[in-house]
C-alpha cells in the first residue's frame, strides 16, 4: 500500500548522502587527478601527461621528503603503540569504576583542545627560552640555553602527543572486552605473563591495535601543524610541500600530483593494514 510513499522516503534519504559523497568527495578527487595529469604549456593551455609525476621522481628533494614523511610517520605510529599499549592495558584491566572513568577521560583531554594549542604548549616547553631549557640550567645540568625545538625528536614528541589518544581509546575498548577469566585460564594452564600477553592478550587486542595504528599513521602523514611549528622551516614534511606548491608557488598541477601521491600512500597503508589483519574498513573504522 504505502510502498510508493516508502520509496519516496528512501530516495529522500538517499539524496543527501549521494550529494555529499559525489559533490564533495568523489568529483573533487577525480578533478584533483585530472589536474595532476595536466601540464601547463602556455597561459590557460594544458595537455595531458605524467610530467608532474616524473618531476616528483626526478627531483630528489621531492621524493626524499616523501620517504622521510612516510618513515617518520611509521616511527611515530610504532612509538605511539609502544607507549600507549601499557596505558590502555592499565586503564582497561587494572582499574575499576570511578578511577577507570577518570583516567579514561584524562586520556581524552588533548582531544578537547585544538591541535594548535597543544603544539603551542610544546613550543613553550621546548624552545631555547622555554621551560625545560630554563629548568635544566637552573639544575646546573647545562651551561647555557639549549634549543630543543626544530629537530626530528621534537616533531616525534609532538606527533605522538597529538595522536596517542587515537591509539589508547580503541585499545581500551578492545582490552575492556577481554574477559578477565581468559587471562586467569591462561595462568591456570601454566602460562607466564609473557606467553599470556603474546598468545591471549595481543591476539584479542589486534582489531584495536590495527585500527589505532591506521588512524595514527594517517594523522601523522597528513599532519601539517606539528612538523611546521616544532620542526621549523626545514622540517621537510610532505604536506608542507603540497602547501608550498598550492599557495606559494601557485603550481596546482604539481601540487595535485603530490596530493595524489600522499593519498595513494595513505590508502595503501590502510589497505595493507586491513589485509594483514584480515579485517574490513567498516568494522575497523566503525569502532573508533
Amino acid at each position, binding site marked *: 500500500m504505502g510502498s510508493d510513499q516508502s520509496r519516496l522516503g528512501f530516495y529522500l534519504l538517499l539524496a543527501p548522502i549521494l550529494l555529499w559523497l559525489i559533490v564533495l568527495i568523489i568529483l573533487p578527487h577525480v578533478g584533483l587527478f585530472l589536474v595532476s595529469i595536466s601540464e601547463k604549456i602556455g597561459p590557460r593551455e594544458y595537455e595531458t601527461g605524467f610530467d608532474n609525476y616524473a618531476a616528483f621522481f626526478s627531483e630528489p628533494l621531492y621524493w626524499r621528503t616523501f620517504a622521510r614523511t612516510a618513515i617518520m610517520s611509521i616511527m611515530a605510529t610504532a612509538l605511539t603503540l609502544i607507549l600507549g599499549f601499557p596505558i590502555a592495558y592499565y586503564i582497561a584491566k587494572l582499574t575499576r569504576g570511578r578511577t577507570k572513568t577518570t583516567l579514561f577521560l584524562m586520556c581524552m583531554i588533548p582531544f578537547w583542545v585544538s591541535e594548535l594549542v597543544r603544539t603551542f604548549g610544546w613550543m613553550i616547553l621546548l624552545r631555547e627560552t622555554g621551560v625545560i631549557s630554563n629548568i635544566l640550567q637552573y639544575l646546573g645540568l647545562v651551561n647555557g640555553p639549549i634549543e630543543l625545538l626544530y629537530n626530528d625528536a621534537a616533531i616525534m614528541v609532538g606527533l605522538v602527543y597529538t595522536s596517542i589518544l587515537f591509539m589508547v581509546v580503541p585499545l581500551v575498548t578492545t582490552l575492556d572486552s577481554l*574477559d578477565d*577469566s*581468559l587471562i*586467569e*585460564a*591462561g*595462568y*591456570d*594452564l*601454566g*602460562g*607466564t605473563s609473557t*606467553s599470556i600477553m603474546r*598468545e*591471549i592478550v595481543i*591476539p*584479542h587486542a*589486534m582489531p584495536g591495535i590495527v585500527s589505532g595504528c591506521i588512524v595514527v599513521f594517517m594523522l601523522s602523514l597528513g599532519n601539517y601543524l606539528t612538523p611546521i611549528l616544532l620542526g621549523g622551516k626545514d622540517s621537510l614534511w610532505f604536506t608542507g610541500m603540497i602547501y608550498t606548491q598550492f599557495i606559494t608557488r601557485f603550481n596546482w598541477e604539481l601540487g595535485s600530483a603530490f596530493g595524489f601521491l600522499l593519498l595513494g600512500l595513505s590508502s595503501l597503508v590502510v589497505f595493507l593494514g586491513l589485509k594483514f589483519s584480515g579485517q574490513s574498513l567498516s568494522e575497523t573504522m566503525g569502532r573508533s
Partner: protein
Amino acid sequence: MTESQPDLECRDLTKDFDAFRAVDHVSFDVPQGSFFSILGPSGCGKTTLLRMIAGFQSPTSGDLRIKGKSMIGVPPNKRPVSMVFQHLALFPTMNIGDNVGFGLRQRGVGKAEIKTRVEQVLERVGLPHVSERRVDQLSGGQKQRVAIARCMVLEPDVLLLDEPLGALDLKLREHMKIELKSLQHAFNTTFVYITHDQSEALVMSDNIAVMNKGWFEQIGSPHEIYHHPDTAFVAGFVGDANKIDAKVTEVNGAMLTLATETGSEMKVEAAGTGLSVGQPAQVFLRPEAIALGASDAAAESTANISHGTVETVFFNGANSTVTVKDGAGHLVKVAMPQTGDFATLRKGDAISTRWLPKQARCYAVSGDV
C-alpha cells in the same frame, strides 16, 4: 580411604575482604579420584574458596595442601590444579586444537607430541577431529567438553569446576550432569565442583559440602545430606521441605512432642537435638514423606495425622504436589502418589495427611536463622 593421602586438604582456611569474612575456618579432605561438590547459595563464599584453591585469591589464614604439599604462596601457573571456568574461558582467538594444546605449549612440549596428545584427549571426551574448528563453531555441550579436555590434557591432580553448567539450557544440563560424572570416572581424577544447584550436586558427587555464610554446614554423601541433614539450613536448602515452627511441649527419650502456636500437636523422633521443654524449634518435613488418606482414615497411635481440605493441586507430571490446609489453617505441601490413587483430587476435597515421627527432622531455633 585413610591410608592413601588425600589429593586436596584444607585446614582452617579463612578469607577476609576488609571487614567481611567470605570463608570462615573451612576444613576438608578430598580423597584421590572422588567427585567433591561444594553446594551453597550465591554469596556463600564457595567461589572464593575455589579461587583460593586455584590460586587467584590468597587465604588470610589456614593451610591448603595438594598431594601433601602446601600451596600457600604458589602462583596459579605453578599449581597442579586446573580450572573449568564458569563461562569456560575458551580462547576465542585460537582454534580448538590450540586451546587444548595451550598448557602443553607453556610446558615446552614438542609440537608433534602436543598434536598427538591433543587428539587423544579430544577423543577421550568424545570430540575427535575438531582441532581445526573455531570455538564459536561448537555447541554449548561440546564447548564444555573442550574446556574439560583443555585441563585434562595437563593431567592435573585436581580439577576445579566453577558452575560450568549454569549457562546451559535445562535439557542439556541434565545430559551434561551424567556426562561429567562419567568423564570423571573415566579420567579417575579428583573433581572439585561448586554449584548452587542441589540436583547437580546430588546426582554427580561422591561427597557434598553444604556451605552457608562462609561456613561448611555439613559434609557427607548425597544420601546423608538429603536424608540426615545436620542443620536446619541443610534441611531447608537441600530438597523440598515443609517448615513448621513449633515449641517443645514434652520430651520422652528421643521422642519429642511439639505444638504450633495454633495448637496443633505433632510427634517427632529426633535424638541428640538437646531440646528441652518450652524451647522453640523448627520441624522439616519432606513432601514425599507424607501420605494422603481418606478423611475418615482411622487413627494410629504412632503417626501424626491431621484432617484438612485440599487448597490447590499443582500438576507437574511425576512431580505433582497438592497443598493441604489443616484445621488450624496451616498449609502443608504433599507429594502426589505416583500410583494415580488421588488423580481426581479437587480443591475443597476433604483429606487427611499422615506421617511417621521418624520421617521429620527437628532443630533448635538458632539466633540468626
